[in-house]
């Protein structure tokens, strides 16, 4: 095994030549063997053109060994390979993506449906026969101001038997743009726009990759600022989601209070870096906005006011029968399901699978902290609601710890140099939805040959499809909101 995989740490850069290149049979066998351990999951699996053919690159994160196992395989364009997904469900979307992007065929793939390249009319949705069954199609245009996605339910009366989710309407070609745009500032702006609500974590992942490729170790203050911004982002989004969950069960008090509580957090971000979503706050190699003593006092007083109301409201919804009856035992993801589909982040943590990059593959200043991931075991909407409440409490503690030890800032642009040639770099971050993975490969001239982005939504949409089975169709919106997955993060 040791000579078949390369073990690297999060945020590191290696020469492409060091990565073992296996034959496809060996590649597939190694993948399946590694994936059989529940502590491992596939962080990224992609193909890129290399010499005459294509190179498949597999990155499997190991949570107990705290490293990432990387190995590759060279194949020819148009090859027909034996699917690994038929034995390991977690890979099914990666294989469909590779098939869609590069035309490789995967034999015996369980469900060859389009990932993003969806043409209405050409693709035949999954069908079930039955006198008493009916189909309900929702979207891609939705009633609320949300992103486009098509949901097709097969129902027996009010009960959902099957949900098929078809995404791809938000496909902007971010990965392609990453290669065609040559300036670092263009690329970091692209990274911020992958999913607007996760801009800090995505740009941190990009910065991690870029710094690794250029061989730069950023100052502690830079890492400190990124960690603080990421935790603020987590708090703001979790609070907004709690409000939206209350809104979906028509609990006006919760919706009003949480909606108001999100505002001081995002407003603080505006005060710090000029953008409520933290755009512009993360740049490779340096921190553009200093965190001053004045900001520190402001944040401490904001958090004090926030915490009092947040705790009171959270205590209320955790003990209010009307809300609990809607959340409890709704939209259950079992531990087996979460493990089999390779769920990450909240979708995994709510079902008893402890997957938190901050603890298992620390980056930024998380390595110096003792992060205990919040894990719930019931897998229902209530678990995801309580998970958010507990993660906000955890983030409050992390932010306060950070504020005790404030580093000195230097906001001067630091020269980066050029990325090293023939290198592979990987960076994992824990966005508020879960693990984000950015990978980059450079060619002999130091130009990007491949840039692969993976948003947690990529794995977790399947968790939603499984969670609503057997539930009432009227509970779908609350299930959907409890995951709050990203459409554009998936579609790229």
């Amino acid at each position, binding site marked *: 095994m040791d000579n078949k995989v390369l073990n690297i740490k999060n945020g590191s850069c290696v020469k492409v030549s060091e990565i073992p290149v296996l034959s496809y049979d060996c590649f597939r066998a190694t993948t399946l063997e590694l994936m059989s351990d529940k502590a491992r999951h596939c962080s990224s699996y992609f193909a890129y053109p290399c010499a005459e053919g294509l190179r498949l690159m597999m990155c499997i994160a190991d949570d107990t060994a705290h490293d990432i196992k990387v190995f590759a395989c060279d194949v020819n364009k148009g090859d027909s390979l034996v699917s690994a997904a038929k034995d390991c469900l977690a890979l099914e979307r990666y294989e469909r993506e590779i098939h869609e992007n590069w035309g490789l065929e995967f034999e015996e793939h369980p469900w060859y449906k389009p990932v993003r390249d969806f043409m209405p009319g050409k693709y035949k949705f999954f069908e079930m026969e039955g006198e008493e069954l009916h189909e*309900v199609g929702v979207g891609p245009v939705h009633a609320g101001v949300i992103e486009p996605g098509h949901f097709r339910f097969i129902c027996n009366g009010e009960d959902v038997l099957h949900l098929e989710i078809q995404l791809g309407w938000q496909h902007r070609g971010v990965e392609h743009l990453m290669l065609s745009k040559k300036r670092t500032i263009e690329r970091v702006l692209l990274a911020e726009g992958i999913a607007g609500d996760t801009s800090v974590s995505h740009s941190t992942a990009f910065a991690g990759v870029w710094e690794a490729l250029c061989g730069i170790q950023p100052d502690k203050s830079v890492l400190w600022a990124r960690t603080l911004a990421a935790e603020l982002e987590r708090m703001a989004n979790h609070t907004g989601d709690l409000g939206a969950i209350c809104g*979906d069960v028509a609990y006006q008090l919760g919706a*009003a209070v949480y909606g108001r509580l999100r505002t001081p957090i995002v407003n603080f971000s505006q005060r710090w870096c000029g953008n409520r979503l933290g755009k512009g706050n993360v740049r490779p190699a340096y921190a553009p906005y200093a965190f001053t003593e004045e900001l520190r006092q402001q944040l401490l007083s904001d958090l004090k006011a926030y915490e009092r109301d947040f705790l009171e409201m959270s205590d209320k919804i955790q003990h209010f029968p009307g809300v609990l009856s809607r959340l409890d035992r709704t939209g259950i993801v079992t531990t087996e399901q979460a493990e089999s589909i390779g769920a990450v982040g909240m979708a995994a943590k709510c079902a008893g699978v402890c997957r938190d990059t901050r603890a298992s593959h620390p980056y930024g200043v998380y390595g110096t902290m003792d992060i205990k991931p919040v894990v719930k075991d019931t897998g229902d909407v209530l678990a995801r609601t309580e998970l958010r409440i507990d993660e906000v409490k955890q983030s409050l503690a992390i932010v306060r710890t950070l504020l005790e030890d404030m580093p000195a800032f230097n906001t001067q642009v630091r020269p980066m140099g050029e990325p090293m040639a023939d290198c592979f770099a990987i960076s994992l971050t824990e966005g508020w939805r879960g693990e984000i993975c950015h990978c980059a490969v450079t060619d002999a001239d130091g130009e990007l040959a491949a840039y692969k982005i993976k948003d947690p939504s990529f794995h977790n949409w399947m968790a939603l499809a499984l969670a609503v089975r057997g539930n009432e169709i*009227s*509970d*779908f919106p609350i299930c959907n909101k409890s995951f709050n997955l990203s459409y554009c993060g998936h579609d790229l």
Partner: protein
Amino acid sequence: MTSLILILISALFFNGIIGRVKSICAGRKGPGIMQPVFDVARLLRKGSVYSETTGPVFKIAPAVYLASVIVACLCVPFGNKAGLISFNGDFVFFAYALALGKFFCIIGALDTGSSFEGMGASREATYSMLAEPAFFLIMGSLALMTGHTSFESIFADLHPSSPMSWALAVIAAFIFLILAMVENSRMPVDDPKTHLELTMIHEVMVLDNSGVDLGLIFVTGFLKFAMYAALIANLLIGSIPVGFGIPVFFAVQFVSAVIIGINESFTARFRMNHNPQFIFTLACIALLAVFGVMLMSGQLI
């Protein structure tokens, strides 16, 4: 005639008051009390859009729906002053006039061929069906108590009789208020504010209606609220003079709207499969009222 005019006046304010109470409870500034009326005025000035799959049923449904509720309003008396339509057994006519409107609303929704509207129609039909026994049982117990079978004579006779009639009036007021919420698809059965088609009941049935048609449906909703609150007011008014009756009438309308508003602010809606139990509980309470009256009047044992 008095009751019709009073119902029309209070219908103008009813939904506005609910909205105001909700916005005050949420700490928002909120729209003015007349906003629902302005919305309707705006809709009535617009044209309607019809999908290609709809037929004539869809076009007449909103008008029939409104007409049925107006006819039902005509049956509502003001204390001992009969409504424009009054005869023995008029409350049966009242209930089925409303049912006719609902029937048209449902087939209008089915006419669109949309899977959403089909779901909404099936939900609305189920809940209306479950709500019907509650209305008849409580009216039956009032009839049994007073020995009359028309709205006007029941309400005229209800008051002076006994403390028992007060108890019955409280139960009836409770049931009419919840019926008004169920029939108007308000919380906790349905959430009128939601944008999520899959959880809607009444709102999803009218998704395809626009312009004038939608305006008529809104007006029908206002009237229905005022009509049920008028029935509650009648339980109090009885045979007291009109001069006192009118303030009592408006007070009851106002209190009903405030109660609905507060309820919507501080509760969550039910899970869909709990709704039938909830609505059926009303019928059970009404049944207890019937037994109570029978016991008291010695007709049971």
